[in-house]
């Protein structure tokens, strides 16, 4: 465009020029910068996780005050679980991915930045509406028709928004890699998100269809509750619930390698195991009653444990070769792995119970199912907290205070582990024991989990506001590209970015220039 009529510089007063710059609020709302989007996702998810866990504690207390068993058909219970997944664990992992993955693959931007921002704001608004609808006796399975419709609709919007964010993340991994970084050389967290994203997109596509069907059929409150139970709730059960933990596998492997300052052996095998776990977490075919509790379902549930055990062996092997630099993030992610193993154990017990129901075993399948879901949900949440702590210098631009990080992770482990263990015991022993005793423990565990989320939020706020960028002396040195801006001078960063990637650990290669960079076989 040609400017034919120029204005003299004196025409524009300085104040008017200054007013054109966006305010802080405008910058937050209008940003397409992936780090800001990711951080908002993380902080929002931690706050809403606390709200959801608080609702779970309230539901248990309500059952306790009624003097009856824990009512798992209660709308507060179901809505709180949906909230912990869609408002807590998944957005936390997605926020980390939006923030970290472009940097891990050497890109300064995420693919489709405006879509990522749309994903964030759609999710946030929908989550707030969902929480409001729950307060109006709606949510999922509520008694109030209008509030239940609002709850279902906002749940569907959250699923669409999270799917959109997953599209941006997966596309970034596929198309924003630098020269030399083949898919076989992407960092494990990026790889795990590339595996998780299609599973999330397909699963949420299927559940959103049921939400749409519930809206179009003009069902009453009971009909909406049934639609949730039949068409949506399956994503909280095995094997689909495995999808929550896929990124935790990638986070674990990245943090262990970084903690040990050593390349992870058998890189391709690790990637294959993460991919295998992803395949076994695809469970849209189990949404009909005939799809569960058959031989294929048993095979999926049991075989899902194989890659987890395999990865545990490879992680142990890496830790055996070199003593790691212990940090809250590394300890936390290893504890998250323990919870993941707990989930696998509950799933295997459920599968065994299905195989020999009434003859060999007489477990309570529902209790084992809830135990598995809660173990995996807790693993995903603690994995996310650990990643936030470990990558705080990249995500929050400062080192996270170790005391707050340790407290948040410990509270998450106690709360999540206790919550899942209560149901595991219920599953193994039946529901006929001291019901009030169970309700008390569920309420306490959920309250501790809420406290963990609040501590996580405090960690994020304190770290991002209270510290300037610190030198890279604290903690283990980074091995992958996301650490370049934190640990290298601008000249070295430019040099690294121009260098053709020759292994999965470009920063390690850069530090030891001249050392062989062939991948470990």
């Amino acid at each position, binding site marked *: 465009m040609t400017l034919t009529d120029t204005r003299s510089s004196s025409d524009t007063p300085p104040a008017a020029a200054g007013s054109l710059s966006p305010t802080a609020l405008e910058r937050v709302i209008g940003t397409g910068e992936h780090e800001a989007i990711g951080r908002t996702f993380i902080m929002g998810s931690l706050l809403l996780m606390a709200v959801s866990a608080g609702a779970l504690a309230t539901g248990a207390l309500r059952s306790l005050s009624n003097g009856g068993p824990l009512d798992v058909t209660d709308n507060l219970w179901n809505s709180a679980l949906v909230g912990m997944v869609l408002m807590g664990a998944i957005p936390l992992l997605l926020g980390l991915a939006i923030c970290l993955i472009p940097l891990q693959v050497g*890109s*300064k*931007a995420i*693919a*489709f*930045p405006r*879509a990522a921002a749309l994903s964030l704001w759609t999710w946030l608004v929908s989550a707030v509406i969902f929480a409001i609808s729950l307060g109006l006796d709606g949510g999922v399975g509520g008694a109030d028709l209008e509030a239940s419709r609002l709850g279902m609709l906002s749940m569907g919007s959250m699923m669409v928004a999270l*799917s959109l964010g*997953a*599209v*941006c993340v*997966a*596309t970034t991994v*596929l*198309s*924003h890699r630098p020269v030399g970084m083949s898919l076989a050389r992407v960092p494990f967290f990026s790889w795990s998100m590339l595996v998780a*994203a*299609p599973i999330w*997109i*397909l*699963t*949420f*596509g*299927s559940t*959103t*269809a*049921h939400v*749409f*069907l519930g809206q*179009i*059929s*003009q069902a009453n409150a009971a009909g909406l509750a049934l639609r949730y139970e039949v*068409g949506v709730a399956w994503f909280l059960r095995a094997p689909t619930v495995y999808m929550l933990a896929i990124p935790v596998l990638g986070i674990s492997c990245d943090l262990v390698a970084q903690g040990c300052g050593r390349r992870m052996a058998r890189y391709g095998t690790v990637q294959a195991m993460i991919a295998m776990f992803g395949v076994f977490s695809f469970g*849209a075919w189990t*949404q*009909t009653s005939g799809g569960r509790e058959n031989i294929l379902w048993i095979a999926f549930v049991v075989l899902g444990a194989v890659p987890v055990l395999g990865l545990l062996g490879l992680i142990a092997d890496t830790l055996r070769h070199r003593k790691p630099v212990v940090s809250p993030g590394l300890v936390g992610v290893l504890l998250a792995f323990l919870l993941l193993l707990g989930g696998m154990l509950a799933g295997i017990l459920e599968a065994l119970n299905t195989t020999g129901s009434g003859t060999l075993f007489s477990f309570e399948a529902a209790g084992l199912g809830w135990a598995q879901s809660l173990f995996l949900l807790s693993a995903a949440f603690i994995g996310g907290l650990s990643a936030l702590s470990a990558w705080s210098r990249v995500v929050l631009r400062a080192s996270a205070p170790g005391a707050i990080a340790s407290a948040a992770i410990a509270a998450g482990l106690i709360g999540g582990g206790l919550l899942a263990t209560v149901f595991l015991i219920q599953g193994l022993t039946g529901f006929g024991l001291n019901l009030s005793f169970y309700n008390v423990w569920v309420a306490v565990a959920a309250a501790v989990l809420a406290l963990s989320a609040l501590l996580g939020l405090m960690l994020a706020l304190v770290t991002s506001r209270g510290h300037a960028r610190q030198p890279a002396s604290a903690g283990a040195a980074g091995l992958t590209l996301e650490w370049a801006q934190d640990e290298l001078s601008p000249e070295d960063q430019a040099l690294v970015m121009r260098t053709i990637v020759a292994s999965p650990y470009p920063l390690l290669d850069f530090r030891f220039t001249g050392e062989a960079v062939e991948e470990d076989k």
Partner: protein
Amino acid sequence: MSDTATLSPPEVASPPESPQAAVAPTAALPPTMPRRRELIFGTVFVAAGVAMALLTLIGSYLATRDAAGAAWLADNQLALTQPNMQMLTLGMSVVTMQWAVWSICRDDRYHTYLAIGVTMLLGIAFVNQSTFLFKEAGIAITQPEGPLFYAVTLGHLAMVIAGLVFLLLMAFRTLGGQYSSRQPDGIGAAAVFWYAGVALYAVIWFAVYIQK
């Protein structure tokens, strides 16, 4: 490099000021192009999510129809002529869509515009045929079959309309010179979404209309 930066036109080098400058190696970066296949990958993921939603709806439709037995749509006339014509229309649009992709890959802009135009015309014809089918069938949303029937067919119709908007947008971008043989991703992405829509209609055509 940010998307904004990659989409900006390459900087024009200043003319050399001296003979030495004319032979000195330039420090300017080579012209950058938008990242290859980014839009195609994104579209594949979105199309997969939409396909999963529609397949779930079709599955629910089939399960409910099986449960209802002979009473399903007993009061309505669901003639096959219209769905067959719709399938034929979308089948032809696959050819014209591929024609557009083929043309843009060879910088044949005239044929690209022509192919996109014909594809959009066939898509609009499909929308028109769908509305006619709905009127002819006379299925009310209040009858038991209504919500599932319209969830499946209107859901797919929405996908076709989204495909038309996508195609229109890509046609404008092509007109603006953004796509060529060096960067044909926009047309390719629109084609991927369109093909997914046609494939899904083939499933609907067989499951909903042929099997009734």
